[in-house]
C-alpha cells in the first residue's frame, strides 16, 4: 500500500510496530512514529532524547524518510524528511484526564502540518500540542482546536 500510495503521488504515514514495521520500512514510508517501547526492537535502549535520536537514525537508515519517537511524558523527538537536524520538544504540562490516544493525536498533528506545509519547528510544536490537547479531551482523539491553539502558544 505504501508503494501504491507513492505511485499516485501521495505520502504514506505509518503507525505500526514489530515485524510489520520492519517489513514496511523497505517500502520507504514518508513518516513513522513508533513509541519508545515499539522502537526498541531496533536494539537501542531508549531513555532520553539522545538515544531516541539514535533510534530515529536507524529507522531512517532502514528506509523511513522521516521518523518521530514519543517519549511520553518526557517529550517528543523528530527528524523531518530531507533534514539532518533532529528536533526535540519538551512535554507540555497539562492536567491530564488520560493519555490514551495522545500518540495518535500527535500523528494527526504531523499530518495536518504536512498538509498545511508548515515548517519543521511549527510542525513539531503542533504535533506536541495535539498530543497534550488529547489528554484534556473527553475521549481519545476528540481533542478541541481551542486547546491545541492555546497549547501551541506555550
Amino acid at each position, binding site marked *: 500500500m505504501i508503494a501504491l500510495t507513492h505511485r499516485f503521488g*501521495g505520502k504514506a504515514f505509518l*503507525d505500526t510496530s514489530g515485524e*510489520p514495521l520492519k517489513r514496511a520500512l523497505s517500502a520507504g514510508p514518508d513518516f513513522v512514529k513508533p513509541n519508545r517501547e515499539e522502537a526498541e526492537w531496533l536494539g537501542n535502549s531508549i531513555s532520553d532524547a539522545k538515544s531516541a535520536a539514535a533510534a530515529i537514525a536507524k529507522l531512517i537508515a532502514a528506509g523511513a524518510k522521516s521518523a518521530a519517537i514519543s517519549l511520553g511524558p518526557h517529550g517528543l523527538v523528530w527528524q523531518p524528511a530531507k533534514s539532518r537536524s533532529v528536533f526535540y520538544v519538551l512535554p507540555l504540562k497539562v492536567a491530564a484526564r488520560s493519555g490514551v*490516544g495522545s500518540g495518535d493525536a500527535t*500523528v*494527526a498533528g504531523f499530518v495536518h502540518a504536512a498538509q498545511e506545509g508548515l515548517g519543521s519547528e511549527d510542525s513539531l510544536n503542533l504535533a506536541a500540542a495535539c498530543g497534550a490537547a488529547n489528554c484534556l479531551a473527553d*475521549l481519545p*482523539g*476528540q481533542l478541541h482546536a481551542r486547546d491545541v491553539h492555546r497549547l501551541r502558544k506555550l
Partner: protein
Amino acid sequence: MIVCVSANPAVDKRVRLPKLALGRVNRVSHVQAAAGGESAHVAMALRALGSVPRWIGFAGGATGQELLAGLKDLDISSVTVPMKNATRVNLEIIDEDGNVTEILELGLPFQHKNVAHSSRPVNLFSAKQGTICLLFFLAACLPASYRNSTRI
C-alpha cells in the same frame, strides 16, 4: 485528501469509578463510548483541526455500527468492509486518583471468510495527487486474495 486506513478498529469505552478493585464487583459512575482504534483517533483529531479525513476499515456487528455512527456524528466519511465478526471494544478504566487501566481486545485477524458480503472494490484514493495515506496495522495482515480485490 487524507485517508486513514485501519485493519483493527474498535469502539472505545471509557468508564470512571471511585477505585478499581481486583476480584470484586466494580460499579462505574460514568460511561462514555465512541469510535476508536488508532486510525479513528487520528481521523477525529484531524477533523477537530479542520482537515477532512476519510476513514477506511473493517466493521461488523452492533459495535461496528456504533463505530460508524460515531464517525458520522463527527462528520467523518467512511468506507467500510463489512465483517461477520463484531468490531472489538477497548475498555479504559479511570479511577478517582487518575489511574488509567486499559483492557484491549485483540480483534480477529482478517480472514476473507469473515467478510459479510462481497463488496465492490474500494477506491481508496481516487488517484488524487497529494493524498496522505495513514496506515495503521497491528499483527493483522491482509491475504493476497483480498489485496487483489482492493483497487487503489
